Protein backbone atom coordinates (compact mmCIF):
# COMPACT_ATOMS: atom_id res chain seq x y z
CA UNK A 1 0.00 0.00 0.00
CA UNK A 2 2.91 2.33 0.75
CA UNK A 3 3.68 2.48 -2.92
CA UNK A 4 0.55 4.62 -3.35
CA UNK A 5 2.05 7.26 -1.05
CA UNK A 6 5.28 7.70 -2.98
CA UNK A 7 5.57 9.65 -6.22
CA UNK A 8 3.77 7.67 -8.91
CA UNK A 9 6.03 6.77 -11.83
CA UNK A 10 5.40 8.57 -15.11
CA UNK A 11 4.48 5.40 -17.02
CA UNK A 12 1.74 4.52 -14.51
CA UNK A 13 0.17 7.98 -14.39
CA UNK A 14 0.59 8.62 -18.11
CA UNK A 15 -1.20 5.33 -18.83
CA UNK A 16 -4.06 6.16 -16.44
CA UNK A 17 -4.44 9.67 -17.91
CA UNK A 18 -4.72 8.05 -21.36
CA UNK A 19 -7.41 5.72 -19.99
CA UNK A 20 -9.27 8.68 -18.46
CA UNK A 21 -9.41 10.35 -21.88
CA UNK A 22 -10.56 7.10 -23.51
CA UNK A 23 -13.25 6.48 -20.88
CA UNK A 24 -14.69 9.96 -21.47
CA UNK A 25 -14.82 9.16 -25.19
CA UNK A 26 -16.56 5.89 -24.33
CA UNK A 27 -19.06 7.87 -22.26
CA UNK A 28 -19.81 9.89 -25.41
CA UNK A 29 -17.88 12.98 -24.22
CA UNK A 30 -14.38 14.35 -24.62
CA UNK A 31 -11.45 15.19 -22.36
CA UNK A 32 -10.92 18.93 -22.05
CA UNK A 33 -10.52 20.93 -18.87
CA UNK A 34 -10.31 24.53 -20.06
CA UNK A 35 -13.81 24.53 -21.58
CA UNK A 36 -15.14 24.46 -18.02
CA UNK A 37 -13.86 28.01 -17.61
CA UNK A 38 -16.25 29.08 -20.37
CA UNK A 39 -19.16 27.25 -18.67
CA UNK A 40 -18.33 29.01 -15.39
CA UNK A 41 -18.38 32.41 -17.12
CA UNK A 42 -21.78 31.56 -18.59
CA UNK A 43 -23.13 30.44 -15.20
CA UNK A 44 -22.04 33.81 -13.79
CA UNK A 45 -24.12 35.57 -16.44
CA UNK A 46 -21.56 36.42 -19.14
CA UNK A 47 -23.99 35.20 -21.84
CA UNK A 48 -26.20 38.26 -21.41
CA UNK A 49 -23.58 40.60 -22.85
CA UNK A 50 -21.35 38.38 -24.97
CA UNK A 51 -22.55 35.94 -27.62
CA UNK A 52 -19.59 33.58 -27.02
CA UNK A 53 -21.02 32.76 -23.59
CA UNK A 54 -24.61 32.48 -24.75
CA UNK A 55 -24.72 28.70 -24.98
CA UNK A 56 -26.42 25.85 -23.17
CA UNK A 57 -23.94 25.24 -20.35
CA UNK A 58 -26.17 22.51 -18.94
CA UNK A 59 -25.00 20.26 -21.78
CA UNK A 60 -21.54 20.68 -20.22
CA UNK A 61 -22.66 19.87 -16.69
CA UNK A 62 -20.99 16.46 -16.84
CA UNK A 63 -17.62 18.21 -17.28
CA UNK A 64 -18.21 20.36 -14.20
CA UNK A 65 -18.86 17.11 -12.32
CA UNK A 66 -15.43 15.90 -13.54
CA UNK A 67 -13.99 19.14 -12.09
CA UNK A 68 -15.71 18.49 -8.76
CA UNK A 69 -14.31 14.95 -8.74
CA UNK A 70 -10.83 16.27 -9.55
CA UNK A 71 -11.04 18.65 -6.57
CA UNK A 72 -12.04 15.77 -4.28
CA UNK A 73 -9.18 13.68 -5.71
CA UNK A 74 -6.71 16.48 -5.00
CA UNK A 75 -8.05 16.78 -1.45
CA UNK A 76 -7.76 13.05 -0.76
CA UNK A 77 -4.33 12.68 -2.38
CA UNK A 78 -2.80 15.58 -0.44
CA UNK A 79 -4.42 14.86 2.92
CA UNK A 80 -4.34 11.06 3.02
CA UNK A 81 -1.76 9.87 0.49
CA UNK A 82 1.23 12.17 1.01
CA UNK A 83 4.77 11.28 1.98
CA UNK A 84 7.72 13.55 2.86
CA UNK A 85 9.63 11.98 -0.03
CA UNK A 86 7.24 13.55 -2.56
CA UNK A 87 8.31 16.09 -5.18
CA UNK A 88 11.93 14.99 -5.31
CA UNK A 89 13.03 17.21 -8.17
CA UNK A 90 16.48 17.53 -9.72
CA UNK A 91 18.98 18.98 -7.17
CA UNK A 92 20.19 21.32 -9.94
CA UNK A 93 16.66 22.73 -10.24
CA UNK A 94 16.54 23.29 -6.47
CA UNK A 95 19.90 25.11 -6.58
CA UNK A 96 18.72 27.29 -9.44
CA UNK A 97 15.47 28.14 -7.65
CA UNK A 98 17.42 29.09 -4.52
CA UNK A 99 19.18 31.83 -6.50
CA UNK A 100 15.72 33.28 -7.23
CA UNK A 101 14.79 33.04 -3.55
CA UNK A 102 12.30 30.23 -4.17
CA UNK A 103 12.11 27.57 -1.45
CA UNK A 104 12.86 23.86 -2.09
CA UNK A 105 9.88 21.43 -2.25
CA UNK A 106 10.58 19.22 0.84
CA UNK A 107 7.43 17.26 0.05
CA UNK A 108 5.31 20.31 -0.88
CA UNK A 109 3.62 20.57 -4.29
CA UNK A 110 4.13 24.32 -4.68
CA UNK A 111 6.65 26.84 -3.33
CA UNK A 112 5.71 28.97 -0.35
CA UNK A 113 7.35 31.96 -2.07
CA UNK A 114 4.72 31.91 -4.83
CA UNK A 115 1.70 30.15 -3.32
CA UNK A 116 1.96 30.59 0.46
CA UNK A 117 -0.82 32.64 2.09
CA UNK A 118 1.67 35.52 2.39
CA UNK A 119 1.05 36.27 -1.31
CA UNK A 120 -2.31 37.77 -0.34
CA UNK A 121 -0.40 40.66 1.25
CA UNK A 122 2.07 41.13 -1.61
CA UNK A 123 1.14 43.12 -4.70
CA UNK A 124 3.84 41.35 -6.71
CA UNK A 125 2.66 37.95 -5.48
CA UNK A 126 -0.96 38.64 -6.41
CA UNK A 127 0.05 40.14 -9.78
CA UNK A 128 2.08 37.05 -10.75
CA UNK A 129 -0.81 34.66 -10.02
CA UNK A 130 -3.41 36.94 -11.60
CA UNK A 131 -1.44 37.56 -14.80
CA UNK A 132 -0.55 33.86 -15.03
CA UNK A 133 -4.25 33.02 -14.72
CA UNK A 134 -5.21 35.62 -17.32
CA UNK A 135 -2.73 34.20 -19.83
CA UNK A 136 -4.00 30.67 -19.16
CA UNK A 137 -7.68 31.60 -19.55
CA UNK A 138 -7.21 33.79 -22.60
CA UNK A 139 -4.67 31.50 -24.29
CA UNK A 140 -6.55 28.23 -23.83
CA UNK A 141 -9.80 29.61 -25.18
CA UNK A 142 -8.01 31.32 -28.07
CA UNK A 143 -6.19 28.07 -28.92
CA UNK A 144 -9.37 26.08 -28.28
CA UNK A 145 -7.87 23.79 -25.66
CA UNK A 146 -5.16 23.19 -23.10
CA UNK A 147 -2.92 20.30 -22.12
CA UNK A 148 -5.89 17.93 -21.88
CA UNK A 149 -7.80 19.07 -24.98
CA UNK A 150 -4.86 19.54 -27.34
CA UNK A 151 -1.79 17.72 -25.97
CA UNK A 152 -3.61 14.57 -24.80
CA UNK A 153 -6.93 14.39 -26.71
CA UNK A 154 -5.83 16.14 -29.91
CA UNK A 155 -2.47 14.45 -30.37
CA UNK A 156 -3.99 11.06 -29.51
CA UNK A 157 -6.32 11.63 -32.46
CA UNK A 158 -3.34 12.71 -34.62
CA UNK A 159 -4.62 16.25 -35.10
CA UNK A 160 -2.17 18.65 -36.80
CA UNK A 161 -3.91 21.73 -35.30
CA UNK A 162 -3.26 20.29 -31.84
CA UNK A 163 0.40 19.78 -32.72
CA UNK A 164 0.64 23.46 -33.63
CA UNK A 165 -1.01 24.42 -30.34
CA UNK A 166 1.28 22.14 -28.32
CA UNK A 167 4.40 23.52 -30.03
CA UNK A 168 2.97 26.96 -29.19
CA UNK A 169 2.57 25.90 -25.52
CA UNK A 170 6.25 25.03 -25.41
CA UNK A 171 7.42 28.15 -27.24
CA UNK A 172 5.46 30.25 -24.72
CA UNK A 173 6.70 28.15 -21.81
CA UNK A 174 10.34 28.42 -22.84
CA UNK A 175 10.06 32.20 -23.38
CA UNK A 176 8.67 32.49 -19.86
CA UNK A 177 11.19 30.11 -18.29
CA UNK A 178 14.32 31.50 -19.93
CA UNK A 179 13.57 35.14 -20.79
CA UNK A 180 10.81 36.52 -18.55
CA UNK A 181 11.08 34.48 -15.33
CA UNK A 182 14.68 35.62 -14.59
CA UNK A 183 13.52 39.24 -14.95
CA UNK A 184 10.68 38.80 -12.43
CA UNK A 185 12.79 37.12 -9.73
Amino acid at each position, binding site marked *: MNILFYTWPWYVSGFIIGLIMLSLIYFGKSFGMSSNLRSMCTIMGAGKRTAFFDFDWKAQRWNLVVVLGAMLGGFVAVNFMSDPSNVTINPKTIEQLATYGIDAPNGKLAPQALFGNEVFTSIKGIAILLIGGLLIGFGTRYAGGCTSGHAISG*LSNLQIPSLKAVIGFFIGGLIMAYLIFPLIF
Partner: protein
Amino acid sequence: MKVLKFLLVGFIFGIVLTKSEAVSWYRIYEMFQFQSFHMYGIITTAIITGVIGIQIIKRKNIKDIDGQPIVIADKENSNSRYWIGGIIFGLGWALVGACPGPIYILIGAGFWSIFIVLFGALLGTYLYGVFKNKLPH
Protein backbone atom coordinates in the same frame (compact mmCIF):
# COMPACT_ATOMS: atom_id res chain seq x y z
CA MET B 1 -25.09 6.47 -11.88
CA LYS B 2 -25.00 8.79 -14.91
CA VAL B 3 -23.40 11.58 -12.91
CA LEU B 4 -21.48 9.31 -10.60
CA LYS B 5 -19.23 7.94 -13.34
CA PHE B 6 -18.04 11.46 -14.18
CA LEU B 7 -17.40 12.15 -10.52
CA LEU B 8 -15.34 8.96 -10.36
CA VAL B 9 -13.35 9.81 -13.50
CA GLY B 10 -12.62 13.27 -12.08
CA PHE B 11 -11.66 11.77 -8.72
CA ILE B 12 -9.14 9.40 -10.32
CA PHE B 13 -7.83 12.25 -12.48
CA GLY B 14 -7.28 14.37 -9.36
CA ILE B 15 -5.47 11.60 -7.52
CA VAL B 16 -3.28 10.60 -10.48
CA LEU B 17 -2.24 14.16 -11.28
CA THR B 18 -1.48 14.88 -7.64
CA LYS B 19 0.39 11.63 -6.98
CA SER B 20 2.43 11.90 -10.16
CA GLU B 21 3.04 15.56 -9.19
CA ALA B 22 1.88 16.87 -12.56
CA VAL B 23 0.01 19.49 -10.51
CA SER B 24 3.27 20.62 -8.93
CA TRP B 25 4.69 24.01 -9.87
CA TYR B 26 8.14 22.46 -9.32
CA ARG B 27 7.57 19.70 -11.88
CA ILE B 28 6.52 22.21 -14.55
CA TYR B 29 9.52 24.41 -13.82
CA GLU B 30 11.82 21.37 -13.97
CA MET B 31 10.21 20.31 -17.26
CA PHE B 32 10.82 23.68 -18.93
CA GLN B 33 14.43 23.57 -17.67
CA PHE B 34 14.81 20.10 -19.27
CA GLN B 35 16.11 18.82 -15.92
CA SER B 36 13.84 15.80 -15.67
CA PHE B 37 12.13 13.31 -17.96
CA HIS B 38 9.20 12.87 -15.56
CA MET B 39 6.67 15.27 -17.15
CA TYR B 40 7.66 14.35 -20.70
CA GLY B 41 7.22 10.68 -19.74
CA ILE B 42 3.70 11.32 -18.39
CA ILE B 43 2.56 13.27 -21.46
CA THR B 44 4.14 10.84 -23.94
CA THR B 45 2.71 7.74 -22.22
CA ALA B 46 -0.75 9.33 -22.09
CA ILE B 47 -0.58 10.12 -25.82
CA ILE B 48 0.69 6.64 -26.78
CA THR B 49 -2.13 5.07 -24.72
CA GLY B 50 -4.59 7.46 -26.37
CA VAL B 51 -3.36 6.83 -29.93
CA ILE B 52 -3.65 3.05 -29.48
CA GLY B 53 -7.07 3.33 -27.81
CA ILE B 54 -8.50 5.64 -30.47
CA GLN B 55 -7.17 3.43 -33.27
CA ILE B 56 -8.89 0.43 -31.66
CA ILE B 57 -12.14 2.42 -31.29
CA LYS B 58 -12.00 3.51 -34.95
CA ARG B 59 -10.98 0.17 -36.47
CA LYS B 60 -13.41 -1.95 -34.45
CA ASN B 61 -16.22 0.65 -34.71
CA ILE B 62 -16.70 0.48 -30.99
CA LYS B 63 -19.95 2.05 -29.79
CA ASP B 64 -20.19 4.34 -26.79
CA ILE B 65 -21.92 3.48 -23.51
CA ASP B 66 -25.35 4.37 -24.97
CA GLY B 67 -24.78 2.27 -28.08
CA GLN B 68 -24.14 5.30 -30.30
CA PRO B 69 -21.27 5.27 -32.81
CA ILE B 70 -18.22 7.12 -31.45
CA VAL B 71 -17.43 10.20 -33.50
CA ILE B 72 -14.39 12.27 -32.53
CA ALA B 73 -14.62 15.69 -34.16
CA ASP B 74 -11.53 16.87 -36.02
CA LYS B 75 -10.00 20.14 -34.85
CA GLU B 76 -10.74 22.97 -37.22
CA ASN B 77 -7.83 23.64 -39.57
CA SER B 78 -6.16 26.97 -38.94
CA ASN B 79 -2.93 28.65 -37.94
CA SER B 80 -3.07 31.92 -35.99
CA ARG B 81 -5.35 30.73 -33.23
CA TYR B 82 -3.21 27.69 -32.44
CA TRP B 83 0.15 29.45 -32.59
CA ILE B 84 -0.81 32.71 -30.86
CA GLY B 85 -3.26 31.16 -28.40
CA GLY B 86 -0.82 28.34 -27.70
CA ILE B 87 2.06 30.71 -26.98
CA ILE B 88 -0.11 32.86 -24.68
CA PHE B 89 -1.20 29.80 -22.73
CA GLY B 90 2.41 28.54 -22.56
CA LEU B 91 3.53 31.81 -20.97
CA GLY B 92 0.93 31.42 -18.24
CA TRP B 93 1.58 27.70 -17.80
CA ALA B 94 5.28 28.21 -17.14
CA LEU B 95 4.64 31.17 -14.80
CA VAL B 96 2.09 29.64 -12.43
CA GLY B 97 2.98 26.02 -13.15
CA ALA B 98 -0.60 24.91 -13.63
CA CYS B 99 -2.86 24.28 -16.57
CA PRO B 100 -6.66 24.33 -16.09
CA GLY B 101 -6.99 20.73 -14.73
CA PRO B 102 -4.37 21.28 -12.02
CA ILE B 103 -5.95 24.64 -11.08
CA TYR B 104 -9.10 22.81 -9.93
CA ILE B 105 -7.11 19.99 -8.33
CA LEU B 106 -4.90 22.38 -6.35
CA ILE B 107 -7.96 24.19 -5.01
CA GLY B 108 -9.17 20.83 -3.71
CA ALA B 109 -5.68 20.22 -2.32
CA GLY B 110 -6.10 23.34 -0.20
CA PHE B 111 -3.97 25.99 -1.90
CA TRP B 112 -6.03 29.14 -1.29
CA SER B 113 -3.78 31.30 -3.45
CA ILE B 114 -4.85 29.27 -6.50
CA PHE B 115 -8.19 31.09 -6.30
CA ILE B 116 -6.30 34.13 -7.63
CA VAL B 117 -5.16 32.03 -10.62
CA LEU B 118 -8.70 30.71 -11.15
CA PHE B 119 -10.07 34.26 -11.00
CA GLY B 120 -7.46 35.35 -13.56
CA ALA B 121 -8.29 32.37 -15.79
CA LEU B 122 -12.01 33.18 -15.70
CA LEU B 123 -11.27 36.81 -16.48
CA GLY B 124 -8.96 35.76 -19.34
CA THR B 125 -11.64 33.45 -20.75
CA TYR B 126 -14.17 36.28 -20.49
CA LEU B 127 -11.84 38.73 -22.25
CA TYR B 128 -11.33 36.22 -25.06
CA GLY B 129 -15.10 35.96 -25.45
CA VAL B 130 -15.39 39.74 -25.63
CA PHE B 131 -12.59 40.25 -28.18
CA LYS B 132 -13.07 37.00 -30.10
CA ASN B 133 -14.31 38.64 -33.30
CA LYS B 134 -11.43 41.11 -33.41
CA LEU B 135 -8.73 38.45 -33.11
CA PRO B 136 -7.11 36.60 -36.02
CA HIS B 137 -8.10 32.96 -36.00
